[in-house]
């Protein structure tokens, strides 16, 4: 087991209220010490002028494995995550087969362990086969390692079933993650309902499709005392609902994606299917509200909703192309460029929403540089420029609307469980070094 001393960086560790120029010593996979002028017999990583942060946590990722390994595998997903600064990701259960049994959870974990770039925390299905008819065996899923439940991609339309899910999971305090989309209000919808859906002749999805379900789920969380998390919140109205629920003491948290903080439905003008995403890109007024919600602390986490899709499936007529965009490799850069430089979040605030925030929601021991904790850590060069290019993605898919953009902030080093995954912007396995795979679960 090696020792590493990450020297002279600005250490930002929101979980422990640290923001100072410090050294970090990691040993045996754990954070050994954080302090001024540490000295140790260790390999030194020069972090002067850089940001040292906990390995980021993305609580909303689609890995397509098992099922669509032509689009992404656990391994390529973890590689993309590492490149984007994420050492822990939670993956959604809409795989094929659906992650509704212990065996699928175990399969994903084995793939992650073999890949060795970072940690995967599977989310189990709320309902068997995502069919919305009966609860999956949640206890068995938790025993296998599931950290929460969601039918993401589909809404649990049956209110009674959603009530039971929130009620049943109280045994473990695990979150039920709501994909809030009223199926009938959103049916056949392609983009946000508004001026642009009219001009482009595309069926609109009203904000109300999201808001009525969020309102329902908040009421059910209040009824049951269950732990509710709202995935990819996208409208000003949704934010208002969550804000009021929090004020009333309801156990609810929420996440927002970078694209719902940055892009609007105006981007759909050219029918570019890389902008087709669910929930749809909304309006400038929604962006403004979400940014304020982030600033005010109503929004708990930023998550990518990384959704890889095959190129030929995105190159279809708009109505027939699937929803979703990849995001693992652009989230950090987008947040630094648009929100930190844009004055919405402090650097520490931004890192908190991508580390301590999601870790707290999922109840996982990640997103912190606390002494004795797992040494998942990243070094960010905030002055380096990332040129988003289709042929540079680590992800197997390239469905990103940001291709061609330049973003500020590149991940220089990544450590997972105390071992380097990326050193000086290069994956260590490309040096022929042994790839470490002691993934802590």
């Amino acid at each position, binding site marked *: 087991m090696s020792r590493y001393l990450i020297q002279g960086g600005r250490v930002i560790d929101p979980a422990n209220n640290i923001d100072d120029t410090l050294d970090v010593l990691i040993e045996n996979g754990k954070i050994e010490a954080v302090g001024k002028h540490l000295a140790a017999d260790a390999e030194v990583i020069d972090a002067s002028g850089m940001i040292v942060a906990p390995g980021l946590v993305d609580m909303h990722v689609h890995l397509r494995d098992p099922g669509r390994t032509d689009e992404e595998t656990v391994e390529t997903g973890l590689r993309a995550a590492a490149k984007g600064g994420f050492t822990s990701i939670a993956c959604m259960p809409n795989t094929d087969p659906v992650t509704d049994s212990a065996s699928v959870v175990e399969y994903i974990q084995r793939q992650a362990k073999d890949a060795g770039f970072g940690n995967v925390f599977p989310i189990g299905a709320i309902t068997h086969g995502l069919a919305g008819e009966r609860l999956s065996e949640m206890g068995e899923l938790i025993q296998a390692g599931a950290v929460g439940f969601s039918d993401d991609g589909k809404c649990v339309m049956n209110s009674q079933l959603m009530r039971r899910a929130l009620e049943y999971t109280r045994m473990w305090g695990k979150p039920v993650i709501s994909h809030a989309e009223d199926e009938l209000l959103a049916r056949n919808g392609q983009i946000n309902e508004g001026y642009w859906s009219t001009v482009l002749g595309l069926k609109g999805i009203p904000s109300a499709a999201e808001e009525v379900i969020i309102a329902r789920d908040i009421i059910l969380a209040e009824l049951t005392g269950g732990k509710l998390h709202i995935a990819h919140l996208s409208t000003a109205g949704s934010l208002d609902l969550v804000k009021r629920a929090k004020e009333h003491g309801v156990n609810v948290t929420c996440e927002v994606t970078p694209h719902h903080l940055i892009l609007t439905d105006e981007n759909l003008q050219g*029918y570019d299917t890389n902008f087709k995403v669910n929930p749809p890109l909304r309006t400038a007024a929604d962006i403004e509200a979400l940014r304020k919600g982030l600033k005010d602390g109503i929004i708990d986490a930023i998550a990518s909703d990384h959704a890889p899709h095959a190129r030929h499936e995105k190159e279809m007529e708009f109505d027939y192309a699937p929803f979703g965009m990849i995001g693992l490799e652009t989230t950090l850069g987008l947040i630094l460029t648009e929100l930190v430089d844009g004055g919405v979040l402090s650097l520490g605030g931004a890192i908190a929403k991508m580390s301590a925030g999601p870790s707290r929601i999922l109840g996982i021991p990640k997103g912190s540089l606390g002494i004795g904790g797992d040494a998942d850590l990243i070094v960010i060069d905030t002055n380096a420029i990332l040129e988003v290019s289709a042929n540079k993605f680590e992800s197997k898919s390239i469905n990103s609307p940001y291709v061609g953009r330049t973003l500020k902030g590149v991940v220089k080093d990544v450590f997972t469980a105390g071992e380097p995954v990326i050193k000086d912007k290069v994956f260590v396995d490309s040096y022929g070094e042994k790839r470490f795979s002691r993934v802590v679960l």
Partner: protein
Amino acid sequence: MGLKHKDLVSINQLTSDEITLILDMAESFREVSERPIKKVPTLRGRTVITLFFEPSTRTRISFELAAKRLSADTVNISKSTSAVVKGESIKDTAQTIQAMAADLVVIRHAASGSAALLAKYMQCSVVNAGDGAHEHPTQALLDLFTIRQAFGTLNGVKVAVVGDILHSRVAGSNILALKKMGAEVTVVGPPTLIPKGVESLGVKVSHDLDTVLPEVDVLYLLRIQLERQGEPLFPSLREYATLFGLNKKRLQAAKPDLIVMHPGPINRGVEIASEVADMPQSVITTQVTNGVAVRMAVLYLLLGGAGSDE
């Protein structure tokens, strides 16, 4: 003189001068269809392919006749005869047609944006003959031609478009084109058929045909369907006819020189009473006649008149 565009996908691409150019050009082509020998050699040696992924009679025939009367070679591909039934994507279809050196492709497709998508993958010209609920630009151009014919101008003409504005590509293109040419547009229908934000396009919205009718010069009726994708948007066709259907009694309140238009096919007894469809105010068949001339102008101008040996 031609159009500087490769494609005609949306009315938005055109300036008012370009629209006037097309209409003026159509004026001179209209006469060709009145000759005993309805053909000019203008596009001889050019290949026009009509790609109809959705059923259509008048638009497909209109484009085909327009191309033939300009002496272009035409090939028709419909969904059932294309490789699409074998699962070929629009991109691959485009590349296949491209490889056979077509000069212009006319596309009708159920998905909005599909004409733009095809145009992206093709070097040759693409004309949108209706894409989903988005646009149908040549329909709007032939409608402008018909209105100009009746009133001598488009500027200041008051037009009411009645019916399913939400799902109508005809309304989509007509609103843009009429506004561009200085006409005043009111859209009329139940709130469930009026799309969000349509006022931002500079049109007025009304839910009462009887207050709008006496004010307008043109009553443009759209085809009504009870269900769209399995979703009923109003209670019944009977109630629609009661509230928004044009009948003889209603027509009495209209200006004497009102013209009644419809893109076809009409539902007699729903949006238009049978006897009204056959009254002199109705210019529905004139629209069809003008359609050929306008499409000749569009084909001619997009292909730049090149290859002509006039």
